[in-house]
Protein backbone atom coordinates (compact mmCIF):
# COMPACT_ATOMS: atom_id res chain seq x y z
CA UNK A 1 0.00 0.00 0.00
CA UNK A 2 1.37 3.39 -0.93
CA UNK A 3 1.46 6.31 1.49
CA UNK A 4 -1.30 7.87 -0.62
CA UNK A 5 -3.59 4.87 -0.13
CA UNK A 6 -2.94 4.86 3.60
CA UNK A 7 -3.84 8.51 4.00
CA UNK A 8 -6.86 8.18 1.72
CA UNK A 9 -8.18 5.21 3.72
CA UNK A 10 -7.61 7.14 6.94
CA UNK A 11 -9.61 10.10 5.64
CA UNK A 12 -12.36 7.74 4.51
CA UNK A 13 -12.45 6.18 7.99
CA UNK A 14 -12.69 9.61 9.65
CA UNK A 15 -15.43 10.77 7.27
CA UNK A 16 -17.41 7.57 7.86
CA UNK A 17 -17.19 8.16 11.62
CA UNK A 18 -18.32 11.76 11.23
CA UNK A 19 -21.15 11.08 8.79
CA UNK A 20 -22.49 8.11 10.75
CA UNK A 21 -22.36 10.05 14.02
CA UNK A 22 -24.10 13.03 12.39
CA UNK A 23 -26.72 10.61 11.07
CA UNK A 24 -27.52 9.62 14.67
CA UNK A 25 -28.35 13.26 15.49
CA UNK A 26 -29.91 14.41 12.22
CA UNK A 27 -31.11 11.11 10.77
CA UNK A 28 -32.33 9.03 13.69
CA UNK A 29 -33.40 11.86 15.97
CA UNK A 30 -34.26 14.46 13.30
CA UNK A 31 -32.25 17.30 14.88
CA UNK A 32 -30.67 19.06 11.90
CA UNK A 33 -27.12 19.97 12.81
CA UNK A 34 -24.95 21.97 10.43
CA UNK A 35 -22.16 22.41 12.94
CA UNK A 36 -20.72 18.92 13.18
CA UNK A 37 -17.31 20.27 12.17
CA UNK A 38 -17.16 22.25 15.42
CA UNK A 39 -17.39 19.09 17.58
CA UNK A 40 -14.83 17.37 15.39
CA UNK A 41 -12.56 20.39 15.83
CA UNK A 42 -13.15 20.63 19.59
CA UNK A 43 -12.14 16.97 19.89
CA UNK A 44 -9.04 17.53 17.78
CA UNK A 45 -7.89 20.56 19.80
CA UNK A 46 -8.60 18.85 23.13
CA UNK A 47 -6.67 15.76 22.06
CA UNK A 48 -3.76 17.80 20.71
CA UNK A 49 -3.41 19.85 23.91
CA UNK A 50 -3.73 16.74 26.10
CA UNK A 51 -1.13 14.91 24.04
CA UNK A 52 1.34 17.79 24.31
CA UNK A 53 0.78 17.97 28.08
CA UNK A 54 0.58 14.27 28.96
CA UNK A 55 1.96 12.25 26.02
CA UNK A 56 -0.73 9.61 26.60
CA UNK A 57 -2.60 8.51 23.46
CA UNK A 58 -5.48 6.90 25.34
CA UNK A 59 -5.97 9.94 27.58
CA UNK A 60 -5.87 12.27 24.54
CA UNK A 61 -8.52 10.32 22.66
CA UNK A 62 -10.61 10.18 25.84
CA UNK A 63 -10.33 13.95 26.32
CA UNK A 64 -11.24 14.53 22.66
CA UNK A 65 -14.36 12.43 23.12
CA UNK A 66 -15.33 14.13 26.38
CA UNK A 67 -14.84 17.68 25.10
CA UNK A 68 -16.78 16.88 21.91
CA UNK A 69 -19.62 15.45 23.98
CA UNK A 70 -19.65 18.38 26.44
CA UNK A 71 -19.90 20.92 23.63
CA UNK A 72 -22.53 18.69 22.04
CA UNK A 73 -24.60 18.64 25.23
CA UNK A 74 -24.50 22.44 25.39
CA UNK A 75 -25.81 22.59 21.81
CA UNK A 76 -28.23 19.80 22.73
CA UNK A 77 -29.71 22.04 25.39
CA UNK A 78 -30.14 24.68 22.70
CA UNK A 79 -32.03 22.11 20.64
CA UNK A 80 -34.56 21.87 23.44
CA UNK A 81 -35.33 25.55 22.97
CA UNK A 82 -35.26 26.00 19.22
CA UNK A 83 -36.69 23.69 16.61
CA UNK A 84 -36.06 22.59 13.01
CA UNK A 85 -34.73 25.42 10.85
CA UNK A 86 -33.99 27.61 13.84
CA UNK A 87 -31.81 24.80 15.15
CA UNK A 88 -30.12 24.39 11.75
CA UNK A 89 -29.08 28.03 11.73
CA UNK A 90 -28.08 27.93 15.41
CA UNK A 91 -25.70 25.07 14.66
CA UNK A 92 -24.28 26.99 11.68
CA UNK A 93 -23.65 29.74 14.23
CA UNK A 94 -21.91 27.29 16.57
CA UNK A 95 -19.56 26.35 13.75
CA UNK A 96 -18.67 29.94 12.87
CA UNK A 97 -18.31 30.76 16.55
CA UNK A 98 -15.93 27.84 17.05
CA UNK A 99 -13.62 28.72 14.15
CA UNK A 100 -13.84 32.45 14.94
CA UNK A 101 -12.95 31.80 18.58
CA UNK A 102 -10.05 29.43 17.86
CA UNK A 103 -8.51 31.81 15.33
CA UNK A 104 -8.17 34.54 17.95
CA UNK A 105 -6.78 32.40 20.80
CA UNK A 106 -3.01 32.34 21.12
CA UNK A 107 -3.12 29.29 23.44
CA UNK A 108 -4.90 27.39 20.65
CA UNK A 109 -2.29 28.47 18.12
CA UNK A 110 -4.50 31.21 16.60
CA UNK A 111 -4.45 31.42 12.82
CA UNK A 112 -1.33 29.25 12.67
CA UNK A 113 -2.92 26.25 14.36
CA UNK A 114 -1.09 23.70 16.48
CA UNK A 115 1.85 21.98 14.82
CA UNK A 116 4.24 19.35 16.11
CA UNK A 117 1.63 17.27 17.93
CA UNK A 118 3.51 14.19 19.24
CA UNK A 119 2.77 11.08 17.19
CA UNK A 120 0.71 8.18 18.49
CA UNK A 121 3.74 5.88 18.34
CA UNK A 122 2.18 3.87 15.54
CA UNK A 123 3.34 4.02 11.94
CA UNK A 124 0.98 5.79 9.52
CA UNK A 125 -0.40 2.37 8.57
CA UNK A 126 -0.93 1.65 12.27
CA UNK A 127 -2.79 4.95 12.60
CA UNK A 128 -4.93 3.96 9.65
CA UNK A 129 -5.80 0.63 11.26
CA UNK A 130 -6.71 2.42 14.50
CA UNK A 131 -8.97 4.83 12.58
CA UNK A 132 -10.62 2.02 10.62
CA UNK A 133 -11.27 0.02 13.81
CA UNK A 134 -12.95 3.02 15.42
CA UNK A 135 -14.93 3.62 12.21
CA UNK A 136 -16.13 -0.01 12.27
CA UNK A 137 -17.08 0.36 15.93
CA UNK A 138 -18.99 3.54 15.12
CA UNK A 139 -20.94 1.72 12.42
CA UNK A 140 -21.66 -1.14 14.84
CA UNK A 141 -22.89 1.30 17.50
CA UNK A 142 -25.08 2.98 14.90
CA UNK A 143 -26.69 -0.32 13.87
CA UNK A 144 -27.14 -1.29 17.50
CA UNK A 145 -28.81 2.01 18.43
CA UNK A 146 -31.01 1.87 15.37
CA UNK A 147 -32.45 -1.49 16.51
CA UNK A 148 -32.66 -0.68 20.20
CA UNK A 149 -35.48 0.96 22.13
CA UNK A 150 -33.44 4.16 22.03
CA UNK A 151 -33.44 4.06 18.22
CA UNK A 152 -37.21 3.63 18.27
CA UNK A 153 -37.53 6.62 20.60
CA UNK A 154 -35.22 8.68 18.36
CA UNK A 155 -37.39 7.97 15.33
CA UNK A 156 -40.53 8.79 17.28
CA UNK A 157 -39.07 12.16 18.33
CA UNK A 158 -37.96 12.75 14.75
CA UNK A 159 -41.34 12.02 13.20
CA UNK A 160 -43.71 13.60 15.67
CA UNK A 161 -42.56 15.01 18.96
CA UNK A 162 -46.04 15.49 20.36
CA UNK A 163 -47.12 11.96 19.50
CA UNK A 164 -43.89 10.67 21.04
CA UNK A 165 -44.72 12.57 24.22
CA UNK A 166 -48.11 10.86 24.46
CA UNK A 167 -46.28 7.51 24.34
CA UNK A 168 -44.35 8.61 27.39
CA UNK A 169 -41.14 9.31 25.49
CA UNK A 170 -39.23 12.15 27.10
CA UNK A 171 -38.20 13.88 23.88
CA UNK A 172 -35.82 16.28 25.62
CA UNK A 173 -33.83 13.47 27.21
CA UNK A 174 -33.55 11.60 23.91
CA UNK A 175 -32.50 14.71 21.99
CA UNK A 176 -29.74 15.26 24.54
CA UNK A 177 -28.75 11.60 24.26
CA UNK A 178 -28.56 11.86 20.45
CA UNK A 179 -26.43 15.00 20.64
CA UNK A 180 -24.26 13.52 23.39
CA UNK A 181 -23.52 10.26 21.56
CA UNK A 182 -23.15 11.79 18.11
CA UNK A 183 -20.83 14.57 19.21
CA UNK A 184 -18.77 12.27 21.45
CA UNK A 185 -18.02 10.17 18.36
CA UNK A 186 -17.19 13.33 16.40
CA UNK A 187 -14.82 14.37 19.19
CA UNK A 188 -13.18 10.94 19.08
CA UNK A 189 -12.77 11.31 15.31
CA UNK A 190 -11.16 14.70 16.00
CA UNK A 191 -8.67 13.06 18.37
CA UNK A 192 -7.81 10.48 15.73
CA UNK A 193 -7.41 13.25 13.19
CA UNK A 194 -4.93 15.07 15.46
CA UNK A 195 -2.74 11.93 15.50
CA UNK A 196 -3.25 11.38 11.79
CA UNK A 197 -1.96 14.79 10.67
CA UNK A 198 -0.06 15.95 13.81
CA UNK A 199 -1.02 19.46 12.71
CA UNK A 200 -4.39 21.18 13.09
CA UNK A 201 -5.79 24.58 12.13
CA UNK A 202 -9.24 26.08 12.55
CA UNK A 203 -9.81 26.09 8.77
CA UNK A 204 -10.07 22.28 8.69
CA UNK A 205 -13.18 22.36 10.87
CA UNK A 206 -15.06 25.10 9.07
CA UNK A 207 -18.67 25.26 7.99
CA UNK A 208 -17.90 23.78 4.55
CA UNK A 209 -16.88 20.53 6.24
CA UNK A 210 -20.14 20.47 8.19
CA UNK A 211 -22.09 20.95 4.98
CA UNK A 212 -20.11 18.15 3.33
CA UNK A 213 -20.99 15.83 6.21
CA UNK A 214 -24.64 16.79 5.95
CA UNK A 215 -24.44 16.13 2.20
CA UNK A 216 -23.18 12.62 2.99
CA UNK A 217 -26.17 12.03 5.25
CA UNK A 218 -28.68 13.40 2.75
CA UNK A 219 -27.19 11.61 -0.26
CA UNK A 220 -26.87 8.37 1.68
CA UNK A 221 -30.47 8.54 2.74
CA UNK A 222 -31.43 10.30 5.97
CA UNK A 223 -31.47 7.77 8.81
CA UNK A 224 -29.96 4.84 6.91
CA UNK A 225 -26.59 3.79 8.39
CA UNK A 226 -25.57 1.68 5.38
CA UNK A 227 -26.55 4.39 2.91
CA UNK A 228 -24.63 7.03 4.85
CA UNK A 229 -21.50 4.85 4.97
CA UNK A 230 -21.64 4.34 1.19
CA UNK A 231 -22.19 8.07 0.62
CA UNK A 232 -19.33 8.99 2.98
CA UNK A 233 -16.93 6.70 1.11
CA UNK A 234 -18.18 7.90 -2.28
CA UNK A 235 -18.06 11.61 -1.46
CA UNK A 236 -14.53 11.24 -0.07
CA UNK A 237 -13.34 9.39 -3.15
CA UNK A 238 -15.17 11.64 -5.61
CA UNK A 239 -12.82 14.65 -5.40
CA UNK A 240 -9.90 12.23 -5.83
CA UNK A 241 -11.58 10.50 -8.77
CA UNK A 242 -12.19 13.76 -10.60
CA UNK A 243 -8.62 14.94 -10.05
CA UNK A 244 -8.17 14.88 -13.83
CA UNK A 245 -10.45 17.87 -14.15
CA UNK A 246 -8.09 19.50 -11.67
CA UNK A 247 -9.00 23.16 -11.99
CA UNK A 248 -12.71 22.42 -12.33
CA UNK A 249 -13.01 20.12 -9.31
CA UNK A 250 -15.34 22.28 -7.25
CA UNK A 251 -17.45 23.04 -10.29
CA UNK A 252 -17.90 19.36 -11.07
CA UNK A 253 -18.40 18.53 -7.41
CA UNK A 254 -21.14 21.12 -6.94
CA UNK A 255 -22.78 20.04 -10.17
CA UNK A 256 -22.77 16.39 -9.15
CA UNK A 257 -24.20 17.27 -5.74
CA UNK A 258 -27.09 19.07 -7.40
CA UNK A 259 -27.54 16.28 -9.92
CA UNK A 260 -27.54 13.42 -7.39
CA UNK A 261 -30.11 15.15 -5.23
CA UNK A 262 -32.29 15.91 -8.26
CA UNK A 263 -32.16 12.27 -9.38
CA UNK A 264 -32.40 10.61 -5.97
CA UNK A 265 -33.90 13.08 -3.48
CA UNK A 266 -34.53 10.26 -1.01
CA UNK A 267 -30.87 9.30 -1.04
CA UNK A 268 -29.07 6.12 -2.04
CA UNK A 269 -30.97 4.04 0.52
CA UNK A 270 -34.29 5.04 -1.01
CA UNK A 271 -32.97 4.45 -4.53
CA UNK A 272 -31.76 0.94 -3.60
CA UNK A 273 -35.09 0.15 -1.97
CA UNK A 274 -37.00 1.20 -5.07
CA UNK A 275 -34.73 -0.82 -7.35
CA UNK A 276 -35.19 -3.89 -5.16
CA UNK A 277 -38.96 -3.44 -5.21
CA UNK A 278 -38.90 -3.30 -8.99
CA UNK A 279 -36.84 -6.53 -9.08
CA UNK A 280 -39.32 -8.22 -6.77
CA UNK A 281 -42.26 -7.18 -8.94
CA UNK A 282 -40.65 -8.33 -12.19
Amino acid at each position, binding site marked *: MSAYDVSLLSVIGLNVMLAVSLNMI*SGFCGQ*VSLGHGAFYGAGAYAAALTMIASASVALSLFMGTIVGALLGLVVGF*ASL*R*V*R*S*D*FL*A*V*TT*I*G*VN*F*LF*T*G*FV*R*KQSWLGGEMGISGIPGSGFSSAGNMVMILIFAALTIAVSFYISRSWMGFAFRAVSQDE*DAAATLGINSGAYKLAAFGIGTALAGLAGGLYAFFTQFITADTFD*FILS*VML*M*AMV*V*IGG*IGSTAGVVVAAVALTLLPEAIRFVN*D*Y*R*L*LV*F*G*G*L*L*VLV*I*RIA*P*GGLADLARRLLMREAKA
Partner: protein
Amino acid sequence: MYYIDLGVTGLSFGCMYAMMAVGLTLVYGLLRILHVAHAAVFALGAYATVLVANASGSVGLGFLAAVAVTPLFGMAVYRLLYEPLLNYRADVPMIASVGLLVLMQDAFRIAFGEQGVTFRNNRFAFTTFDLAGVRVNAVQIAIMACAVVVFIGLHLFTTRTRVGIGWRATVSRPKIATSFGVDVVKVRYMNFAIGSALAALAGGLVGLLDNLVDPMIGYVVSYKALAIIVLGGLGSVRGTLIASLALGMVESYGTIFMGQWLNRDAIAFLALIALLMIRPQGFTGTRTV
Protein backbone atom coordinates in the same frame (compact mmCIF):
# COMPACT_ATOMS: atom_id res chain seq x y z
CA MET B 1 -16.89 61.13 16.19
CA TYR B 2 -15.29 57.71 15.84
CA TYR B 3 -18.37 56.08 17.34
CA ILE B 4 -20.65 57.92 14.94
CA ASP B 5 -18.48 56.73 12.03
CA LEU B 6 -18.96 53.19 13.28
CA GLY B 7 -22.69 53.81 13.47
CA VAL B 8 -22.79 54.93 9.83
CA THR B 9 -20.82 51.86 8.76
CA GLY B 10 -23.13 49.61 10.75
CA LEU B 11 -26.22 51.26 9.34
CA SER B 12 -25.07 50.93 5.73
CA PHE B 13 -24.12 47.30 6.24
CA GLY B 14 -27.48 46.73 7.89
CA CYS B 15 -29.27 48.23 4.89
CA MET B 16 -27.27 45.98 2.56
CA TYR B 17 -28.08 42.91 4.64
CA ALA B 18 -31.76 43.86 4.58
CA MET B 19 -31.92 44.01 0.78
CA MET B 20 -30.09 40.71 0.55
CA ALA B 21 -32.13 38.95 3.22
CA VAL B 22 -35.64 40.02 2.28
CA GLY B 23 -35.74 37.66 -0.70
CA LEU B 24 -34.40 34.87 1.44
CA THR B 25 -36.97 35.28 4.19
CA LEU B 26 -39.82 35.38 1.65
CA VAL B 27 -38.58 32.18 -0.01
CA TYR B 28 -38.60 30.59 3.41
CA GLY B 29 -42.05 31.95 4.14
CA LEU B 30 -43.43 30.47 0.91
CA LEU B 31 -41.56 27.20 0.58
CA ARG B 32 -39.88 26.49 3.96
CA ILE B 33 -36.54 26.20 2.13
CA LEU B 34 -33.29 27.76 3.34
CA HIS B 35 -32.30 29.16 -0.05
CA VAL B 36 -28.51 29.20 0.42
CA ALA B 37 -27.94 29.74 -3.30
CA HIS B 38 -29.39 33.23 -2.82
CA ALA B 39 -25.73 34.13 -2.21
CA ALA B 40 -24.97 33.01 -5.76
CA VAL B 41 -27.70 35.35 -6.99
CA PHE B 42 -26.06 38.13 -4.98
CA ALA B 43 -22.70 37.32 -6.60
CA LEU B 44 -24.29 37.08 -10.06
CA GLY B 45 -25.76 40.55 -9.54
CA ALA B 46 -22.37 41.91 -8.51
CA TYR B 47 -20.68 40.37 -11.56
CA ALA B 48 -23.37 41.57 -13.95
CA THR B 49 -23.01 45.09 -12.54
CA VAL B 50 -19.23 45.27 -12.82
CA LEU B 51 -19.00 43.59 -16.23
CA VAL B 52 -21.68 45.68 -17.90
CA ALA B 53 -20.44 48.84 -16.19
CA ASN B 54 -16.92 48.23 -17.50
CA ALA B 55 -18.11 47.35 -20.99
CA SER B 56 -20.50 50.27 -21.36
CA GLY B 57 -18.78 52.83 -19.16
CA SER B 58 -21.96 53.46 -17.20
CA VAL B 59 -22.46 52.12 -13.68
CA GLY B 60 -26.19 52.80 -13.97
CA LEU B 61 -26.40 50.51 -16.98
CA GLY B 62 -24.54 47.87 -14.97
CA PHE B 63 -27.15 47.92 -12.23
CA LEU B 64 -29.91 47.80 -14.81
CA ALA B 65 -28.39 44.67 -16.35
CA ALA B 66 -28.00 43.03 -12.92
CA VAL B 67 -31.61 43.71 -12.00
CA ALA B 68 -32.74 42.37 -15.38
CA VAL B 69 -30.70 39.14 -15.42
CA THR B 70 -30.95 37.85 -11.85
CA PRO B 71 -34.76 37.50 -11.68
CA LEU B 72 -34.57 35.09 -14.63
CA PHE B 73 -31.90 33.13 -12.81
CA GLY B 74 -33.88 33.09 -9.57
CA MET B 75 -37.01 31.84 -11.30
CA ALA B 76 -34.99 29.14 -13.10
CA VAL B 77 -33.59 27.97 -9.76
CA TYR B 78 -37.10 27.63 -8.41
CA ARG B 79 -38.42 25.79 -11.46
CA LEU B 80 -35.49 23.43 -12.00
CA LEU B 81 -34.19 22.85 -8.50
CA TYR B 82 -36.78 23.50 -5.80
CA GLU B 83 -40.10 22.64 -7.37
CA PRO B 84 -39.26 18.93 -7.85
CA LEU B 85 -37.94 18.70 -4.28
CA LEU B 86 -40.82 20.33 -2.42
CA ASN B 87 -42.17 17.05 -1.04
CA TYR B 88 -38.90 16.06 0.63
CA ARG B 89 -37.44 16.96 4.01
CA ALA B 90 -36.25 20.57 4.15
CA ASP B 91 -32.57 19.61 4.34
CA VAL B 92 -32.75 17.94 0.90
CA PRO B 93 -33.38 21.12 -1.14
CA MET B 94 -31.00 22.96 1.18
CA ILE B 95 -28.10 20.63 0.33
CA ALA B 96 -28.98 20.94 -3.36
CA SER B 97 -28.89 24.70 -2.84
CA VAL B 98 -25.43 24.49 -1.25
CA GLY B 99 -24.29 22.40 -4.23
CA LEU B 100 -25.52 25.12 -6.58
CA LEU B 101 -23.68 27.79 -4.58
CA VAL B 102 -20.40 25.81 -4.76
CA LEU B 103 -20.88 25.28 -8.48
CA MET B 104 -21.64 28.96 -9.17
CA GLN B 105 -18.75 30.23 -7.06
CA ASP B 106 -16.33 28.02 -8.95
CA ALA B 107 -17.90 28.99 -12.27
CA PHE B 108 -17.30 32.67 -11.45
CA ARG B 109 -13.71 31.89 -10.49
CA ILE B 110 -13.06 30.01 -13.73
CA ALA B 111 -14.80 32.57 -15.93
CA PHE B 112 -13.53 35.81 -14.37
CA GLY B 113 -10.45 34.83 -12.36
CA GLU B 114 -9.50 34.27 -8.75
CA GLN B 115 -8.46 37.91 -8.28
CA GLY B 116 -11.89 39.18 -9.20
CA VAL B 117 -12.89 42.16 -11.31
CA THR B 118 -12.54 45.83 -10.39
CA PHE B 119 -14.59 48.72 -11.70
CA ARG B 120 -12.67 50.56 -14.39
CA ASN B 121 -14.27 53.84 -13.60
CA ASN B 122 -15.56 54.00 -10.04
CA ARG B 123 -15.56 57.51 -8.72
CA PHE B 124 -18.27 56.68 -6.15
CA ALA B 125 -16.11 54.46 -3.93
CA PHE B 126 -13.57 57.23 -3.45
CA THR B 127 -15.97 60.11 -2.99
CA THR B 128 -16.61 60.96 0.64
CA PHE B 129 -18.76 63.65 2.14
CA ASP B 130 -18.06 65.43 5.37
CA LEU B 131 -21.30 65.79 7.30
CA ALA B 132 -20.57 67.83 10.44
CA GLY B 133 -17.33 65.93 11.01
CA VAL B 134 -18.67 62.50 10.09
CA ARG B 135 -17.16 61.06 6.94
CA VAL B 136 -19.65 59.24 4.75
CA ASN B 137 -18.84 57.43 1.55
CA ALA B 138 -20.99 58.08 -1.51
CA VAL B 139 -21.70 54.37 -1.93
CA GLN B 140 -22.76 54.09 1.72
CA ILE B 141 -25.28 56.85 1.09
CA ALA B 142 -26.44 55.04 -2.05
CA ILE B 143 -26.92 51.79 -0.09
CA MET B 144 -29.01 53.51 2.55
CA ALA B 145 -31.04 55.42 -0.03
CA CYS B 146 -31.68 52.24 -2.03
CA ALA B 147 -32.81 50.38 1.06
CA VAL B 148 -35.22 53.17 2.02
CA VAL B 149 -36.71 53.27 -1.49
CA VAL B 150 -36.89 49.48 -1.72
CA PHE B 151 -38.61 48.96 1.59
CA ILE B 152 -41.08 51.80 1.13
CA GLY B 153 -41.79 50.40 -2.34
CA LEU B 154 -42.28 46.89 -0.98
CA HIS B 155 -44.56 48.20 1.73
CA LEU B 156 -46.73 50.08 -0.75
CA PHE B 157 -46.77 47.13 -3.16
CA THR B 158 -47.83 44.60 -0.53
CA THR B 159 -50.44 46.80 1.11
CA ARG B 160 -51.92 48.82 -1.77
CA THR B 161 -52.00 46.51 -4.78
CA ARG B 162 -54.08 43.41 -5.38
CA VAL B 163 -51.08 41.34 -6.48
CA GLY B 164 -49.07 42.42 -3.44
CA ILE B 165 -51.87 41.58 -1.04
CA GLY B 166 -52.18 38.17 -2.71
CA TRP B 167 -48.45 37.70 -2.16
CA ARG B 168 -48.73 38.45 1.56
CA ALA B 169 -51.76 36.21 1.84
CA THR B 170 -49.86 33.34 0.22
CA VAL B 171 -46.94 33.71 2.61
CA SER B 172 -49.13 33.61 5.69
CA ARG B 173 -51.94 31.19 4.65
CA PRO B 174 -51.28 29.48 1.28
CA LYS B 175 -54.41 27.31 1.32
CA ILE B 176 -56.80 30.12 2.14
CA ALA B 177 -55.08 32.34 -0.43
CA THR B 178 -55.70 29.67 -3.08
CA SER B 179 -59.36 29.50 -2.21
CA PHE B 180 -59.55 33.27 -2.74
CA GLY B 181 -58.25 32.80 -6.27
CA VAL B 182 -54.58 33.60 -5.78
CA ASP B 183 -52.34 31.64 -8.15
CA VAL B 184 -49.76 30.30 -5.68
CA VAL B 185 -47.29 29.19 -8.35
CA LYS B 186 -47.30 32.67 -9.97
CA VAL B 187 -46.69 34.18 -6.55
CA ARG B 188 -43.66 31.92 -6.10
CA TYR B 189 -42.18 33.03 -9.42
CA MET B 190 -42.78 36.66 -8.57
CA ASN B 191 -41.24 36.10 -5.16
CA PHE B 192 -38.06 34.64 -6.65
CA ALA B 193 -37.93 37.42 -9.27
CA ILE B 194 -38.25 40.31 -6.81
CA GLY B 195 -36.04 38.71 -4.15
CA SER B 196 -33.31 38.03 -6.71
CA ALA B 197 -33.42 41.55 -8.11
CA LEU B 198 -32.99 43.01 -4.61
CA ALA B 199 -30.10 40.66 -3.84
CA ALA B 200 -28.48 41.66 -7.13
CA LEU B 201 -28.86 45.32 -6.24
CA ALA B 202 -27.18 44.67 -2.88
CA GLY B 203 -24.44 42.68 -4.60
CA GLY B 204 -23.72 45.43 -7.10
CA LEU B 205 -23.57 48.03 -4.32
CA VAL B 206 -21.15 45.93 -2.25
CA GLY B 207 -18.98 45.48 -5.34
CA LEU B 208 -19.01 49.24 -5.84
CA LEU B 209 -18.18 49.89 -2.17
CA ASP B 210 -15.20 47.51 -2.14
CA ASN B 211 -14.37 48.36 -5.76
CA LEU B 212 -13.93 44.62 -6.22
CA VAL B 213 -16.11 41.69 -7.23
CA ASP B 214 -14.45 38.35 -6.50
CA PRO B 215 -15.78 34.76 -6.44
CA MET B 216 -16.11 34.78 -2.64
CA ILE B 217 -18.26 37.92 -2.52
CA GLY B 218 -21.41 35.99 -1.65
CA TYR B 219 -19.90 33.52 0.75
CA VAL B 220 -20.01 35.13 4.17
CA VAL B 221 -23.05 37.25 3.41
CA SER B 222 -24.97 34.09 2.61
CA TYR B 223 -24.67 32.46 6.01
CA LYS B 224 -25.09 35.76 7.78
CA ALA B 225 -28.28 36.28 5.82
CA LEU B 226 -29.51 32.95 7.21
CA ALA B 227 -28.78 34.24 10.70
CA ILE B 228 -30.67 37.43 9.91
CA ILE B 229 -33.82 35.74 8.67
CA VAL B 230 -33.85 33.46 11.70
CA LEU B 231 -33.46 36.45 14.02
CA GLY B 232 -36.22 38.18 12.12
CA GLY B 233 -38.54 35.27 12.78
CA LEU B 234 -38.34 33.41 9.42
CA GLY B 235 -40.77 34.72 6.86
CA SER B 236 -41.30 38.12 8.41
CA VAL B 237 -40.18 41.14 6.36
CA ARG B 238 -40.45 43.57 9.24
CA GLY B 239 -38.46 41.24 11.50
CA THR B 240 -35.80 40.85 8.83
CA LEU B 241 -35.44 44.61 8.49
CA ILE B 242 -35.00 45.04 12.25
CA ALA B 243 -32.59 42.10 12.48
CA SER B 244 -30.49 43.38 9.56
CA LEU B 245 -30.04 46.82 11.05
CA ALA B 246 -29.36 45.36 14.50
CA LEU B 247 -26.78 42.95 13.12
CA GLY B 248 -25.02 45.72 11.17
CA MET B 249 -24.73 47.71 14.41
CA VAL B 250 -23.67 44.76 16.59
CA GLU B 251 -20.92 43.83 14.12
CA SER B 252 -19.72 47.37 13.76
CA TYR B 253 -19.44 48.09 17.49
CA GLY B 254 -18.68 44.48 18.43
CA THR B 255 -15.42 44.44 16.48
CA ILE B 256 -14.21 47.36 18.59
CA PHE B 257 -15.11 45.87 21.95
CA MET B 258 -14.63 42.17 21.26
CA GLY B 259 -12.30 42.18 18.27
CA GLN B 260 -9.43 40.62 20.18
CA TRP B 261 -11.48 37.54 21.13
CA LEU B 262 -13.69 36.92 18.13
CA ASN B 263 -13.77 37.86 14.46
CA ARG B 264 -16.59 39.75 12.81
CA ASP B 265 -18.59 36.71 11.69
CA ALA B 266 -18.29 34.99 15.04
CA ILE B 267 -19.63 38.12 16.77
CA ALA B 268 -22.64 38.11 14.44
CA PHE B 269 -23.40 34.48 15.22
CA LEU B 270 -22.79 34.95 18.95
CA ALA B 271 -25.44 37.66 18.91
CA LEU B 272 -27.72 35.32 16.99
CA ILE B 273 -27.35 32.42 19.42
CA ALA B 274 -27.71 34.65 22.47
CA LEU B 275 -30.90 36.13 21.09
CA LEU B 276 -32.36 32.80 20.05
CA MET B 277 -31.88 31.46 23.55
CA ILE B 278 -33.93 34.35 24.91
CA ARG B 279 -36.48 34.52 22.09
CA PRO B 280 -36.54 31.16 20.24
CA GLN B 281 -39.03 32.55 17.73
CA GLY B 282 -36.94 35.57 16.67
CA PHE B 283 -37.72 39.28 17.05
CA THR B 284 -41.22 39.35 15.68
CA GLY B 285 -42.22 35.76 15.05
CA THR B 286 -45.05 34.24 16.99
CA ARG B 287 -44.31 31.02 18.75
CA THR B 288 -45.45 28.06 16.71
CA VAL B 289 -45.30 24.55 18.12
